[in-house]
């Protein structure tokens, strides 16, 4: 029997009360959150169709887009490597690490690195790899795999995290989530500062500009890509978008689907390593593009699954995932599948073969909640059916098998049913026989109590077949006369939501910023310096990281101004390039005269935003020269946050916990036209 390990893990998960409570909490909050988040996007179904079309176009012509992407990334100064499989990716990684004599790797969240077991390979080669996403850090300390592609520690409750930190980090036991989060902040801060290599995944690669887009809430994704001297990005080769306008569209869908946010706290747009004129940023950036079975998937009937943008919405919507969690999706011998949930039940057999993971596709009632939740409208039920039909590509040239994961007895039953059902006379005969036999088995009750071993009988009774099926009744049925139509009404109830009118961008910006937990202080240009000084005084800030703009403002103020990355400063002051009204976001850029880390390292980020630089939304600023030409640009949406422990929102993880925007009333000097 091939499914024992899987059946066993399903039973164990269902019996685990703490897990059930954690999964119920996840499903309920995430699904409601997603609905609420999309309510702010009236045209979301159109966007979804458009996103599907964009991703389809890229996947259909994947090699063309890849070639152009690689060329552009290289010309931006990033070194590009292609890895055919996990082993090759590890080898490339180690070559880079060895050439820098690296010992410590700070990692941000990357499902691809989980797919190729990168941590294990690095440890074996003598490197220390530390996960810095709070959820990933927790599961790494427990020696586990993530149980969800977005919230890795979704299977755990706060007391388990408290006990873990007490045991592994020697801190006093607590169930206080902000205290636990702060412990991780302090431990990992050391890692960010000491790491030789920062390793990240990539959410999207943008072909036209060679942009690597990485979204993160805690700030660790920014840390690992900006503080260590070498950054290595690991990316599935399918995660491409044609241009920055397409990225703006996908960014309106991804965070809403993943974490019910309009935008993630940090949307990182990386173009190049540090340039000669820059004060910060890694000296080298590498991109490893991983195949690892994706080409085989591309050539198969499961190609559509490559559209996936790894938002995890299908996991949250899936009633089966809700019952068992990510760790229950196991292979033949009980090893945890690299990708769980509905999408994982296609990807795991798709990348690693139906022999090992094909049975996962049977763990679905085909209810379609996954497809409904998918922001790029992947026909997941259709793909699950194809996996079941034996259409997953084979890694070992084993011949395709139909009905993967279905027990022989059930197959035989379906075959026998098929034989009868293609012969109506025989079919009718069996129906009548079933009606008679069922009355012998259950003479009194219309509903039969079958044994649990029948499967059906575990939780429900089975109706007795009718003594006289419909086909035998038809000839003698009484017919009815037509009566008058009572009421006809064929109006379709289509309600159209009008686009919200944006009458006052600044007011909207302030509302959204405050909703994210940020603070807005309006002032005029002449009041600016005094406003900053009183802010600093009120918070007892004596040391301030500043960019050139901040430096000029406070040159004679007596404040200790630091113009390079310095983790000991309590606050950072930066001018920002733009504000986004519909998400309350700020656009900051790296480059000459800028200090991006001033918006990341300190506990408090004070941003200077000119009123004339407030734009309606992300598409207005993303595809502009200021973004294209920046070595790195970041869209900041509120203070750093996490919900990795019990979905409880905690502000201030690796990035600032306080964000103050000085909204300067000006009438000139807009940076983006």
């Amino acid at each position: 029997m091939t499914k024992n390990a899987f059946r066993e893990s399903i039973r164990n998960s269902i019996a685990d009360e703490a897990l059930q409570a954690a999964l119920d909490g996840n499903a309920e909050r995430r699904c409601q959150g997603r609905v609420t988040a999309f309510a702010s996007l009236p045209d979301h179904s159109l966007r979804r169709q458009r996103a599907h079309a964009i991703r389809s176009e890229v996947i259909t012509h994947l090699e063309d887009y890849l070639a152009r992407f690689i060329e552009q990334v290289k010309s931006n100064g990033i070194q590009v490597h292609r890895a055919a499989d996990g082993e090759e990716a590890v080898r490339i990684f180690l070559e880079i690490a060895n050439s820098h004599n690296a010992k410590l790797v700070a990692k941000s969240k990357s499902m691809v690195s989980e797919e190729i077991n990168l941590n294990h390979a690095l440890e074996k080669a003598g490197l220390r790899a530390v996960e810095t996403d709070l959820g990933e850090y927790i599961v790494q300390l427990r020696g586990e795999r993530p149980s969800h592609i977005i919230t890795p520690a979704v299977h755990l409750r706060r007391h388990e995290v408290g006990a873990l930190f007490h045991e592994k980090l020697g801190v006093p036991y607590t169930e206080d989530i902000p205290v636990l989060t702060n412990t991780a902040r302090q431990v990992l801060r050391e890692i960010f500062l000491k790491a030789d290599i920062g390793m990240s995944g990539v959410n999207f690669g943008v072909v036209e500009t060679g942009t690597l887009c990485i979204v993160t809430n805690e700030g660790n994704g920014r840390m690992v890509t900006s503080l260590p001297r070498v950054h290595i990005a690991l990316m599935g080769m399918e995660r491409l978008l044609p241009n920055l306008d397409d990225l703006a569209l996908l960014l309106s869908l991804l965070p809403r689907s993943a974490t019910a946010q309009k935008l993630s706290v940090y949307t990182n747009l990386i173009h190049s390593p540090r340039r000669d004129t820059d004060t910060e940023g890694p000296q080298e950036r590498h991109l490893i593009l991983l195949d690892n079975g994706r080409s085989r998937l591309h050539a198969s009937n499961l190609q559509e699954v490559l559209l996936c943008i790894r938002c995890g919405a299908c996991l949250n919507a899936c009633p089966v995932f809700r019952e068992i969690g990510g760790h229950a999706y196991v292979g033949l011998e009980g090893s945890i599948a690299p990708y769980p949930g509905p999408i994982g039940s296609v990807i795991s057999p798709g990348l690693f073969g139906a022999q090992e993971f094909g049975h996962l596709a049977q763990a679905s009632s085909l209810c379609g909640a996954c497809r409904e939740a998918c922001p790029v409208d992947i026909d997941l039920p259709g793909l699950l059916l194809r996996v079941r039909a034996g259409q997953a590509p084979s890694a070992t040239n084993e011949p395709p098998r139909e009905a993967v994961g279905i027990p022989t007895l059930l197959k035989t039953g379906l075959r026998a049913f098929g034989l009868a059902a293609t012969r109506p006379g025989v079919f009718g005969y069996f129906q009548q026989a079933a009606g008679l036999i069922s009355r012998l088995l259950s003479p009194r009750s219309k509903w039969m109590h079958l044994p649990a071993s029948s499967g059906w009988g575990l939780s429900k009774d089975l109706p007795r077949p009718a003594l006289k099926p419909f086909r035998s009744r038809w000839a003698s049925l009484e017919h009815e006369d037509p009566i008058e139509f009572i009421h006809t009404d064929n109006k379709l109830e289509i309600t159209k939501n009008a686009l919200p009118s944006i009458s006052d961008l600044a007011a909207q910006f302030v509302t959204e910023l405050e909703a994210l937990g940020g603070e807005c202080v309006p002032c005029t240009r002449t009041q600016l310096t005094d406003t900053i000084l009183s802010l600093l005084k009120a918070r007892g800030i004596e040391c301030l990281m500043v960019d050139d703009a901040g430096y000029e403002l406070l040159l004679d103020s007596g404040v200790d101004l630091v113009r390079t990355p310095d983790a000991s400063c309590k606050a950072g002051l930066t001018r920002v390039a733009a504000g986004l009204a519909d998400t309350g976001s700020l656009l900051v850029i790296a480059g000459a005269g800028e200090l991006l880390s001033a918006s990341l390292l300190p506990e408090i980020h004070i941003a200077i935003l000119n009123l004339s630089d407030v734009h309606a939304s992300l598409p207005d600023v993303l595809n502009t020269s200021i973004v294209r030409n920046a070595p790195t640009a970041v869209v900041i949406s509120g203070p750093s946050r996490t919900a990795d422990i019990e979905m409880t929102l905690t502000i201030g993880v690796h990035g600032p916990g306080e964000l103050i925007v000085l909204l300067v009333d000006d009438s000139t000097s807009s940076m983006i036209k």
Partner: protein
Amino acid sequence: MIETVQLMVTCLIDTFFPEVGEAMLKVLERLGVSVEFPSDQTCCGQPAFNAGLRSEALPLARHTIQVFEASSGPIIIPSGSCAVMLRHGYLELFAEDPPWLERAQNLAKRSFEFSEYLVDHLGVTDVGANFPGKLSYHASCHLLRGLGVDRQPRRLLSNVHGAELIELPHADECCGFGGVFSVEHPELSAEMLKRKISNLETTQAATLVVCDTGCLMHIQGGLKRQGKTQQVVHIAEILANREPSQ
């Protein structure tokens, strides 16, 4: 007569719930529709198709296409999932068989789920039905997400005289049937069923209406096992119910 339709009664109704077929016939004939029953019909092949046993689903699909090609009118199906099989499943099954694909496409165009046919095709939202009591509606997965049919049955039910329609919490969540899934993964199916039943209990409704006899059999089977008294009925049974005076 408005038009002549063919009844695809489905193997579940044929075998287990013939009274649902009879109720459908009543509703359709009262609306002036002439109903035929091609007696060679058996099963659309969905169980084998969903299990991944496409070689077994193919002969059943061909058989079904041949049976219903005998005439050209609408095919009325009292089950969302069987309708999805005809509308979508067959197109997938015959994707690389152009002659059969064409026949499947013609069949798909003629296929209607029962409530969809009444509301979208006939334009009827009140069939003059009467049902005293509280009703709740479970939105079957394939009907809702496979066909996009939801407004139609809700509209029909809201016009049932005497009935009080109570919204079922999480009405669109799967009941855990899923065909072979319910036998193959009984533990998962049981948990999903438990949640559906506890949601039903919060409504205080004595009757749960569905448009798919797979869900009917599953939820009713669970209620019976738990010793509960709620009844699960097919929408045709509610719509066929008329006031004694009429």
